[in-house]
């Protein structure tokens, strides 16, 4: 064991155990499921995980801050409804394919606005983010129903619903957008002042205040970021379906939080990174995809994923010493 820990890859895996798990399930399904090990399927997994993955990036920031956002599923549905509906507004009727541009912009702005509302309430009232966003989850879902009037919207412009089939070289455009977002948020978190402040605020809020960080606006920016990413994810999801339903994105917050926690981010804040979150998202994506290919019924998949989450949290508590932050073997 002693010389095994000298190998850089092993040391890296000990710091990010979720990637070991990703590797294991990937190899397992490559043998267990036909059709799993192919370039086409790997692309499929990337496209399927991009929806939850984009939100998980924002959730990582918010959770490192020691907050949580339960309203992302509703924000996603609201943004998707705007993105599909605004295209068919009469004022953009003569714009041709350009009518997609204002639609997507408005949808993203709506997402940022919802995040800003959440962040502002957390900042000014000092109420726990869990309660604020729990209320917002109900309330924004109510806004979705008010806006859509319980109807589904369908995209009349086929350029919109064809967007998700575009590819850049061999890569689907949705996977490319996800990859760009991963790199951008990773750089934001590890290379900028804002990223360092994120850890500081989550690690010890009092100390962050004393160090002169404007904690309130800082948290509000992170809430706006997750609102933006949830809206982006809603737009991309509605391009995949060519439609927006008022019940879109229900329970997504739970999937996202599961992925982020699997990736090693602490619910209490101060610890976590994008590499871990990416691992968590991929682990869930591979498990869902692989079990689908093995024709495991969907409700067993939920049971298995729940058990894995509890097992991972247990092992994490058992093996992770707070002092060195690595897996103890």
């Amino acid at each position, binding site marked *: 064991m002693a010389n095994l820990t000298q190998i850089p890859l092993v040391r890296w895996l000990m710091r990010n155990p979720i990637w070991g798990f990703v590797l294991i399930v990937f190899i397992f399904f490559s043998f267990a499921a036909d059709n799993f090990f192919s370039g086409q399927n790997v692309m499929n997994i990337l496209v399927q995980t991009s929806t939850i993955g984009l939100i998980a990036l924002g959730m990582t920031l918010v959770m490192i801050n020691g907050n949580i956002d339960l309203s992302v599923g509703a924000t996603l549905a609201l943004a998707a409804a705007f993105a599909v509906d605004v295209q068919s507004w009469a004022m953009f009727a003569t714009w041709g394919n350009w009518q997609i541009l204002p639609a997507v912009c408005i949808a993203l702005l709506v997402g940022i606005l919802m995040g800003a509302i959440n962040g502002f309430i957390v900042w000014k*009232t000092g*109420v*726990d983010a869990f309660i*604020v966003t*729990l209320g917002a*989850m*109900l*309330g924004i879902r*109510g806004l979705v*129903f008010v806006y859509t009037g319980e109807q589904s919207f369908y995209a009349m412009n086929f350029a919109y619903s064809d967007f998700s089939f575009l590819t850049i070289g061999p890569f689907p455009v949705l996977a490319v957008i996800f990859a760009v977002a991963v790199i951008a948020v990773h750089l934001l978190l590890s290379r900028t002042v804002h990223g360092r402040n994120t850890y500081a605020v989550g690690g010890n809020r009092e100390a962050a205040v004393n160090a002169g960080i404007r904690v309130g606006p800082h948290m509000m920016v992170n809430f706006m970021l997750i609102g933006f990413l949830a809206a982006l994810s809603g737009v991309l999801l509605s391009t995949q379906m060519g439609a927006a339903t008022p019940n879109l994105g229900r329970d997504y917050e739970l999937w996202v939080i599961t992925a982020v926690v699997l990736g090693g981010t602490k619910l209490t804040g101060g610890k976590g990174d994008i590499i871990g979150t990416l691992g968590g998202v991929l682990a869930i994506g591979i498990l869902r995809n692989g079990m689908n290919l093995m024709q495991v019924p969907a409700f067993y998949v939920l049971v298995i994923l729940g058990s894995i989450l509890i097992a991972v949290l247990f092992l994490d508590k058992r093996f992770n010493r707070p002092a060195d932050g690595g897996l103890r073997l």
Partner: protein
Amino acid sequence: MTYLISALCVAVAAIILGSRVMGSQNNVGQGYELQVLAAVILGGTSLLGGSGSILRTVLGVLMLAFIQNGLILMGQPYYTQWLVTWAVIIIAVWLDVAAKRGRLFSPIA
């Protein structure tokens, strides 16, 4: 033990609901977690533990039920009650927190 009691209450609620609608589906109760949490928080129970009482929780449940029933009697669509619940939860908890710290707005810069 606490979880056992909670599960027992869930089972009783399920039997009552089942007898009211005379049937069951596998996704009955989806979204109930949030309404329940909202009612308990409205009753003043702390999320961090250590404070709260059953009488207050009953008041919280009744308050949410009044709002829902009243809005439907006023002829509003059922999703308006979600919007009202949003505002009610945040304002109620805000006032609670503000009373504890002695000032309305959070001192965080």
